[in-house]
C-alpha cells in the first residue's frame, strides 16, 4: 500500500493585517479593499521558501528515524537559487543520508502536487521509500497590487511510503495547460496576473472541474463520495459555483485559509491537505487538487494508522504561534522591496568560501555534532579530540544530529549596532542539550523573550544574504520556546 505516512506544516510567526497594507496603498488602488479582509502570513526577515520547507519537513519527520529518509523533493516557485539544488539544502538540514534522490520541482503552481505524485510514483515503483516532499512559497506582488494582499507564506511536507501509511493513494488525474493566469519571467521579482474574470471563469471555473471529473471517472468514484474536498481558489464566487456544480456539502470543502494565511502558491493545496489530515478519520476519502498551469487531482483514503501518528505541530500549531506585524514598511524592507540603509556595518563584504562550506556542510546544514565513542561526550562543533579532560580520545567520534535536541540559553545580548534588517540583533551562547556550546542568533522573539536558562529550539534560517553575489547562506538559529499563543 503506497501513500502518505506522515505530514507536517509550517506557517511563519508574523501576520500582517491586510487592512494595514490597504491603509498604506489603497489610495493607489481603491478596488483592493475587496481583498483586504483578514491577514497574511509573512516570513520573517531570515526566512524564505527553503527555510519554511525545512521547517515543514522537520515537523513531518517528527517521531521517525531520519536515517530512513529515502528521498527529498522540494517544490517552490520562489527558490533562493536557480542553479543550486534547494532540495539538497532541505535534505542537508534534515541530516538525511546523501545516497538518496533529491529533486526540485518548479515552474507552475501545481509543482507541489506534482512533486507529491512523483514521490508516489517512485515509491510505487519500488525505487525509493520514505520520500519527503516539501512545498513552500513566498511570492511577491508589487505594492498596491491584488497579489500583495492575496499571497501569503507557508509550507507543507509529506512523507511518502509503502508502510504504515495514514492515507492510501488510490489514484490521480493530471492535466497540463499553457494557461497563463499568473506568470513571472526569468528575471522578474513580482507576480503578474491577467484579468481576474478570466482566471476565475476559465482557470478555476473550468480546469478544476475538469480535473475532478477526470479523477472520478478514472477511479470510479463520485465527487460526493469524498469526505474532504481540497482545491485552491481564492475567488469566493468561483468556489461557490464549483461547490454547487458538484453538490459538495460546505462542511466537506476544506477552508483555503485565505483570511488567515493567504495563497501560498505551490504549497497551497498541500497545506490544505496537511490541515485536513489533522482532523481526518479512518475511512475518509480525500480529494486534493493542485492548480496552476493545469491541474493534478489526487485521491487518498485515510487509514487506521492516522490514530497512531505521533502528535506534531502541523498547520494548526503553527497558526496558533503568531504575532502581529504592525508595520508595512518592515514587511517591504524584509522582502527587499524598498532599499534600506543598515549602516556601514551592513556594507561589509562577507565572502562565501565554498570549499569551507563543503568541508563543514554537515555541521552547517545538518547541525551535526560529534559524540565520543569512548566516553559519550557530545560536542558541537564536531571535534576530532574528545573535549572531556578525563578522556581525550582521538578520532573516536561518531556523528550525532543535534538540531532537534534544543538547548538552554547560557548568555544573550541585544545589539543595536550590528547590521540587521530586524534590529536589535540578538545573539548569545546556547548550551545544546546533551552537550556542546555554541554562539547562535536568536530569532522569532523579542529581547523580553530571552532569559538565562530558558529553553530554545533550533530553526533553520537565512544566516546572511550576500546581495553583491546573490548568495543566500543558511544556518541554525535559536528560538525561545513559547508554549502558548502570543
Amino acid at each position, binding site marked *: 500500500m503506497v501513500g502518505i505516512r506522515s505530514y507536517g506544516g509550517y506557517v511563519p510567526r508574523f501576520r500582517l493585517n491586510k*487592512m494595514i497594507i*490597504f*491603509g*498604506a496603498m*489603497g*489610495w493607489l488602488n*481603491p*478596488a*483592493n*479593499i*475587496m481583498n483586504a*479582509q483578514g491577514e497574511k502570513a509573512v516570513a520573517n526577515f531570515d526566512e524564505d521558501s527553503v527555510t519554511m520547507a525545512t521547517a515543514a519537513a522537520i515537523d513531518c519527520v517528527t517521531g521517525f528515524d531520519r536515517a530512513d529518509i529515502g528521498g527529498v523533493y522540494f517544490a517552490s516557485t520562489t527558490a533562493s537559487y536557480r542553479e543550486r539544488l534547494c532540495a539538497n539544502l532541505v535534505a542537508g538540514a534534515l541530516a538525511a543520508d546523501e545516497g538518496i534522490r533529491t529533486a526540485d520541482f518548479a515552474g507552475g503552481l501545481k509543482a507541489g502536487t506534482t512533486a507529491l505524485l512523483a514521490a508516489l510514483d517512485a515509491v510505487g515503483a519500488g525505487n525509493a521509500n520514505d520520500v519527503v516532499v516539501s512545498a513552500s512559497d513566498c511570492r511577491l506582488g508589487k505594492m498596491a497590487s491584488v497579489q500583495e494582499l492575496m499571497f501569503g507564506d507557508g509550507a507543507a511536507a509529506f512523507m511518502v511510503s509503502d508502510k504504515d501509511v495514514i492515507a492510501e493513494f488510490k489514484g490521480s488525474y493530471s492535466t497540463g495547460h499553457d494557461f497563463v493566469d499568473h506568470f513571472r519571467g526569468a528575471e522578474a521579482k513580482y507576480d503578474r496576473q491577467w*484579468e*481576474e*474574470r478570466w482566471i476565475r471563469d476559465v482557470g478555476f471555473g473550468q480546469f478544476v472541474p475538469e480535473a475532478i471529473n477526470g479523477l472520478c471517472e478514472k477511479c470510479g468514484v463520485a465527487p460526493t463520495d469524498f469526505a474532504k474536498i481540497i482545491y485552491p481558489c481564492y475567488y*469566493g*464566487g468561483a468556489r461557490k459555483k464549483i461547490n454547487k456544480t458538484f453538490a459538495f456539502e460546505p462542511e466537506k470543502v476544506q477552508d483555503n485559509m485565505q483570511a488567515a494565511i493567504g495563497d501560498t502558491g505551490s504549497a497551497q493545496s498541500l497545506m490544505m491537505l496537511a490541515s485536513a489530515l489533522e482532523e481526518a478519520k479512518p475511512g475518509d476519502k480525500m480529494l486534493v487538487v493542485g492548480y496552476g498551469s493545469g491541474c493534478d487531482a489526487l485521491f487518498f483514503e485515510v487509514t487506521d494508522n492516522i490514530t497512531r501518528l505521533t502528535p506534531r505541530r502541523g498547520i494548526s500549531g503553527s497558526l496558533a504561534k503568531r504575532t502581529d506585524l504592525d508595520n508595512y514598511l518592515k514587511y517591504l524592507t524584509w522582502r527587499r522591496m524598498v532599499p534600506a540603509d543598515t549602516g556601514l556595518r551592513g556594507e561589509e563584504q562577507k565572502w562565501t568560501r565554498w570549499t569551507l562550506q563543503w568541508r563543514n556542510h554537515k555541521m552547517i546544514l545538518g547541525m551535526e555534532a560529534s559524540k565520543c565513542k569512548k566516553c559519550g561526550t557530545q560536542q558541537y562543533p564536531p571535534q576530532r579530540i574528545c573535549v572531556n579532560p578525563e578522556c581525550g580520545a582521538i578520532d573516536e567520534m561518531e556523528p550525532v544530529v543535534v538540531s532537534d535536541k534544543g538547548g538552554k540559553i547560557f548568555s544573550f545580548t541585544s545589539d543595536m549596532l550590528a547590521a540587521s534588517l530586524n534590529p536589535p540583533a540578538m545573539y548569545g551562547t546556547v548550551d545544546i542539550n546533551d552537550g556542546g556550546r555554541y554562539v547562535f542568533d536568536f530569532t522569532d522573539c523579542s529581547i523580553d523573550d530571552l532569559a538565562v536558562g530558558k529553553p530554545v529550539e533550533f530553526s533553520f534560517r537565512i544566516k546572511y544574504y550576500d546581495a553583491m553575489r546573490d548568495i543566500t547562506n543558511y544556518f541554525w538559529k535559536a528560538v525561545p520556546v513559547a508554549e502558548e499563543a502570543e
Partner: protein
Amino acid sequence: MKYVHLPLDEEIRSIGGYYKVLEEGLLDFEGRKILYAVKGANAETSCCGPGGVGYINVPGYLTSWKSSKNEGGLDVSEVKRIRDSETQKKVRKILAERYSYISVIDFD
C-alpha cells in the same frame, strides 16, 4: 426609510462586476446612533480593464435595529436620512478619521 442588511463579504454581482458589504457599524453622534456600511465595488469584467473603489455609505439615523425581515429573509432596519449638510460634514469628518484609507463617503 428601510435598510436591508445584506450578508457581509458576499459578492453581489451585476453587469461588469460586483460589490460587497464589508462591514456595518453604528456611530454614536450627538446622542443618536448613525448606521453606516463600508462597501467595495469591483468592475472586473469591464471591457476597458478592471478597477474599483472602497466607499462608506451612510443610510442615516437608526430608528429601529433589525426590527423586521424582508421577503428574502434578510434583516431590515429603519433609518432616517441625514439631510442637513453641516451634520453630514461632521459625520464625514469622523468617519474619514476612523477609516483613513477610504476616500469616498456618501449619504443616502
